[in-house]
Every structure is written in structure tokens, then in C-alpha cells.
């Protein structure tokens, strides 16, 4: 039957053993894309969804109308956050490999997304992240030790042991609780933004999904509601080329950029070099401004690459070339910002190395502290009886009696 089949089957440009091939990626030269006014009509800015907004060029210079012209100090801070994200991920990955946490997800290669966008938003804006946005939590003030304690499900775990590692949340930092279900946070962001508008506040919401997740119903729900009510929301699609083993074409990325997905609803889309911190910052500021002024939603596609495996449960050598990341034309966001700063005379290899060492030490110190609150194998442990809390605000009797029954059977952690 396969022989006569006329079904189109999307195929990635390279599989293991093949030479990486990113010729399918349409790139615009840095600085080449016009920057419209925030009040521009959607119809007049459709081009933004097909071009690629870039600020940093191949010679590490910042160029063109989207250059946000940030002070060197601010860029050094951004570099620091991206590096922290990377160093943290590396350490946690190792820790998982040593069996000390059950699961982990890296953002390797995508750090500019969370850091640049966190920088571009205001503290009162609400973020509805995916599981690869740990940078948002960091930037919004979550302590490394708290993130580690969450991954350890220990006595300081903000999730009280109820969630898989990396499923953080912070109300004070205005970053939502991560769900294991893809894209469900997208309509939440739109609803949150609608409420903000209803209350006459000027806070906006932002949410993130991956390229693969755009196929989910909630992506459509979010876009539809955002368009209908012109909700002040930024809807980000992080196109890191892969969804576990499926390349972005499996989600419909073969023909048009994901940035174009909202055009048919009148939602402007911007395609941006997701590994160019300056560009990401600039488009996010633009979209936030637009939303805050009542201009409605913007869809931002961040073109990047998933540098690591999908998660600690994944082995990408089974489905993509080992050296694909190295061939990715948009490079590594950290390296690019570093080179830009060096090029402008505001940074050096030595400073960079020193910063990395500092951050490693910071992460290590946090890890040491985190373990004091308990590890998987050594106490102190969370009280299992707490698993019956927070199911409801007003708990039904049956949960109390189940709690009692549980305690009759399992008196302590060893007692299974």
C-alpha cells in the first residue's frame, strides 16, 4: 500500500548519519527588517511574520531599526542570566544523571528567549511559561536553592513534593505554575489578560509554547479569544526545530513560519532570531507596548534550536544528527552576546571565564544548601500526610479519613 500512497509525509532535512541541513530556514540579514510603529495596522505589518528580525550580525555588531541600544551593563547582566541558566541546567543534568533527582529539562541553546523576554516585560506582567522557561523564574527572583529544592521534592519544595522536577511556580514573581500538559497555559494567559483589561489595569500577560505544541487545541482557543477580545497578551512560539523526535514540519511548519499562524485572525506575527538577545528584547518590548496601548495580541515566533535532548528521558542521537546544533545558522545565544560585548570592548574572554567560575560556585553553593532541606535518599522528608492538602480549599471529609488511613499504614518514609 505504501507504494501507491500519495499522502505527503513531512520529513526533516537530516536524520542520524546525514549532514545537518538548515537550508529550509529562511534568514534575513541582520538589520534588514523595517520596524513599524506600535500603532501600525496589522495588515501593514504582515511582512514581519515572514522575515526574521535580527540585530546582531555575523561580525557581532548590532544593527538596524530594531537595535534596542542597551547599555553595556544591561547586556552584561543579560549575559550573566543566560550563563546562569546554562550553568544551572548543566549541574542539574548531572545531578539527574547521578540519580539524585528523578527528571530534568534543559533550556540549552534557548536561554535568550526567557532572559530577553523577562527583561522586556514589567514585573506586574504575568508569565505563563512552558517547561523550558526556567530563565523566567530566575530572572523574576526565584532563588536557585528554591528551584533545586523543587527538583528534589524536599522540605523546602514550593510544590510540596506534588510535582515533577522543573514544575515551578511563583505568585510573588508573577510566573504561573507549569503544567505537564502542553499548551494548556496559553488560554490561561489570554483569560488573565482579558481580566486585566476588564479591571482597567495595564498589566499584560505572556505565554510560551513550543513549535510542536501549536497543534494543540488550546493554541487555537488562545488565538481566537485573544483576537476576538483584543486581549493584551504576547503569545510566543519557541520554534526550536524539534518536538521530541518530530521536527517542526510535523506541526505544520513546512510551508509557513509559525509567526503567520494568527494572521487569519488579524493577530500580527513577528518572526525573530531567538538566539539574538537584542532582537528578542526589541520585539518583545514592541509587542508589550502595543498590548499595553490597547493594540491587542501579538504572536512572536522565536527561531532557535533545542541544543540538548528533549529531557533526561530522551536520546536524540536516535533521531537527529549529532552535530546538528553546531550547524545551526543562528548559533548559540550566549556565545553571540558574549562576542558582541567583546566586539564593543565591554567584555573579555577572561571576564567570561571568571563569570562562569563564579556562577558554577554559586550553583554549587545552592546545591549544597538545597540538600540540607532533604534529598531523595536522606531526610528531612516532607510529611506524606501533606499530600491531602490543597486538593480543595474546603476539603471534603473523605480526604481527612483517607489521610488517617494512610497514616495507619505508612508511619514513616521507610514504611512502605
Amino acid at each position: 500500500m505504501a507504494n501507491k500512497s500519495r499522502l505527503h509525509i513531512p520529513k526533516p532535512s537530516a536524520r542520524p548519519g546525514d549532514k545537518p541541513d538548515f537550508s529550509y530556514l529562511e534568514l534575513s540579514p541582520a538589520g534588514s527588517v523595517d520596524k513599524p510603529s506600535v500603532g501600525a495596522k496589522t495588515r501593514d505589518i504582515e511582512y514581519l511574520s515572514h522575515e526574521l528580525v535580527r540585530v546582531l550580525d555575523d561580525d557581532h555588531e548590532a544593527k538596524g531599526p530594531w537595535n534596542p541600544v542597551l547599555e553595556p551593563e544591561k547586556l552584561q547582566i543579560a549575559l550573566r542570566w543566560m550563563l546562569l541558566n546554562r550553568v544551572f541546567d548543566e549541574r542539574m543534568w548531572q545531578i539527574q544523571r547521578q540519580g539524585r533527582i528523578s527528571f530534568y529539562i534543559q533550556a540549552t541553546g534557548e536561554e535568550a528567549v526567557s532572559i530577553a523576554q523577562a527583561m522586556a516585560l514589567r514585573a506586574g506582567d504575568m508569565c505563563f511559561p512552558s517547561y523550558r522557561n526556567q530563565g523566567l523564574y530566575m530572572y523574576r527572583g526565584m532563588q536557585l536553592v528554591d528551584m533545586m529544592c523543587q527538583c528534589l521534592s524536599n522540605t523546602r519544595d514550593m510544590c510540596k513534593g506534588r510535582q515533577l522536577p522543573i514544575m515551578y511556580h511563583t505568585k510573588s514573581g508573577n510566573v504561573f505554575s507549569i503544567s505537564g500538559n502542553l499548551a494548556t497555559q496559553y488560554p490561561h494567559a489570554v483569560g488573565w489578560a482579558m481580566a486585566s483589561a476588564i479591571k482597567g489595569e495595564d498589566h499584560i500577560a505572556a505565554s510560551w509554547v513550543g513549535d510542536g505544541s501549536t497543534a494543540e487545541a488550546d493554541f487555537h482557543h488562545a488565538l481566537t479569544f485573544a483576537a476576538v477580545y483584543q486581549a493584551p497578551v504576547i503569545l510566543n512560539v519557541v520554534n526550536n526545530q524539534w518536538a521530541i523526535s518530530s521536527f517542526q514540519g510535523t506541526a505544520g511548519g513546512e510551508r509557513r513560519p509559525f509567526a503567520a499562524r494568527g494572521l487569519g485572525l488579524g493577530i500580527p506575527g513577528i518572526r525573530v532570531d531567538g538566539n539574538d538577545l537584542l532582537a528578542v528584547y526589541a520585539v518583545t518590548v514592541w509587542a508589550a507596548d502595543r498590548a499595553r496601548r490597547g493594540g491587542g495580541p501579538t504572536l512572536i515566533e522565536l527561531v532557535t534550536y533545542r541544543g540538548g535532548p528533549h529531557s533526561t528521558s530522551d536520546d536524540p542521537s536516535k533521531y537527529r544528527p549529532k552535530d546538528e546544533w553546531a550547524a545551526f545558522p543562528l548559533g548559540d545565544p550566549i556565545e553571540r552576546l558574549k562576542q558582541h560585548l567583546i566586539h564593543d570592548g565591554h567584555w573579555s574572554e577572561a571576564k567570561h571565564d571568571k563569570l562562569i567560575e563564579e556562577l558554577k560556585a554559586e550553583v554549587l553553593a545552592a546545591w549544597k544548601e538545597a540538600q540540607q532541606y532533604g534529598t531523595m535518599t536522606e531526610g528531612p522528608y516532607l510529611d506524606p500526610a501533606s499530600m491531602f492538602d490543597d486538593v480543595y480549599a474546603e476539603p471534603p471529609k473523605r480526604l481527612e479519613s483517607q489521610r488517617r488511613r494512610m497514616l495507619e499504614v505508612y508511619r514513616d518514609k521507610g514504611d512502605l
Partner: protein
Amino acid sequence: MPQMNMIEAIRSAMDVVMDKDPNVIILGQDVGFFGGVFRCTDGLQRKFGEHRVIDAPIAEGGIIGAAIGMGVNGLRPIAEIQFADYIYPGFDQIVSELARLRYRSCGEFFSPVTIRTPCGGGIHGGQTHSQSPEAIFTHVSGIKTVMPSNPYDAKGLLIASIESDDPIVFFEPKRIYNGPFDGDPEKPAVSWASHPKGEVPDGHYTVPIGTAEIAREGSELSIITYGTLVHVATAAADAMGVDAEIIDVRSLSPLDVTTITDSVKKTGRCMIAHEATRFGGYGGELAATIQKDCFYYLEAPVSRVAGWDTPYPHAFEWQYFPGQKRIAAGIRRVMEAAA
């Protein structure tokens, strides 16, 4: 005391809460200008404005998803799903998000959404306007499931639901919107005016979620039921002259086990009745609990009368619906079982 039918009582509940709390908003298909296909929100947009009574796109998943986000941002959304038969596209948002948000964030985030939806049969609605999907929601930890059987309870339970910080699926048995229904489709319609529970205070009051009510006291057997069938069961027992105690469960989850088991311990016999298909239905949970807690009191097995295990067939509505005859047959089975 004013007389209200269930539609008026439900509308009054929303009116009262919206007057009191500016954060309460309504979101649903046709709820705004039109006032809802069953008129439950009639006049509310005129009174509270189109920013608080909002016509929504036809996307149940979107309505519930957006309502969750609104709730997280301090609003108290009432989401109307036009028919319970159309709640399934929103199922993932209910189960995976609404039900678990408080738990997974340890109370930092929650969303006090009330989902109102008309359910049940008896209106010639066919397969997609007659379903009773309550059982699947009772199985979801983190959600409360409520179904009133009369105007007084409808208003009191709905106010309690909207004001609760817990998410609630609030089922409205549409067959009795306009009057109680004893299961005989040939009889002329009766209005709520003749029913004591048709008397509904104008102002604010609540009926606590988690409490069942003895709809009719009796000593010979206990009939555990809810929604429209409370009235059918009462009529059947009356017609048979059986001194049945009829318990209106009202709050399916959390369940008021004590009121139910006290009754069964007293009568020693128990029948459960619901409209939903029987297999895997809520009656299973009731029967399992009752046989466990009343084992030494039961003189006969706990029996279930329910919708047949088929989709809801349009033309055979009255053979499908657990009407008086089927309930009577069920009662007889329970009464005749040897102790």
C-alpha cells in the same frame, strides 16, 4: 416569599452575587445580548454591562481555559456551557488544569470557576441535548459536582458555588427548569408555584455544598437520587403507597455520606436512581459506599435504576428515561427481596 422557577432562581443567584462582588463575570455562548438559550442570563447583560456578561466564541475548551486565567487574575468567572453534552471539548482544561491548579501550586494559584451547564433528558433533545455526564466529574479530584432538584436549592447552591474558592461543575436538570416533572410526559405541565421549594427568597442565602437533603421521609426503603428523578421517585413511591424515604443527594462530590447511610440503616433497603447510563455511573459509587457502611443493616441488595447503557435515543426517550414504571419496578425488586 417570591415564587421562582429554576431559571429565575438561577438568574437571581447570579444577579445577587454580581451585585455584591464586581469580580463576578459570566462567559458563555449566547449568554449576553440574547440572555442564553434557556434564558438563564436574561437581563444580566443589560444590568451589569457587556464587560461582565460576555458572549463567547463557540469553543468550550476556550471558554473554560480563559475562565481559568481570569480566575487566576482575581475574577470569579461563571462559565456557561450551553448543554452538558458539549462540555467534553473543555474536559482537558477541567481535569488537567482547573481541578489541579491549587494542588500543584500548593494554594498559590487557584481559580474559582463555576461551570453551569444544563443536563439530562426529557425534552425531546436526542443524543446531544440529553446527556447526564456527572459521573465523570465526580471521579476528578479537585472538582466539586453539584445538581439541584428545585428552585430553592438551585439558587442557594449556585450562590455557594460562585462564592466558593473551589471549582465547581454545576449541573442544571433542564427538564425541571419550568416545573417539577413526575415522569409522565402526557400529563399537563405543572409549575413550581405549587411546590414548596418554588418559594425562593429574593436576596442572598446559601445551601451548603456537601449536604444531601431528605426530600421525603419514610421508613420502608431509601431511594437515593438527584435532579429530575427526585420528583419521579417521589411520584412513584406515592403512587405505590410505599413509605419510601427519598434522599436528594444534591452535592454529588463531596458526598454527604452520613445522611444517606443513616437513612439506609433506618430502612434497611435501598434503591439508587439516576438518568445517566448505568455502567460506570455515579450509582456505582453510591452503591459501593452504601453496601460498605450499611452492610449489617441491609435486608436486600442495593439496587440501581438508571438510563440504559446506550446513547440517548430520540424516539425512545420515554423507554430510556427512568420513569415511574421503571422506578416502581425497582422499588418492587428491593421490597420483595428476602431479608
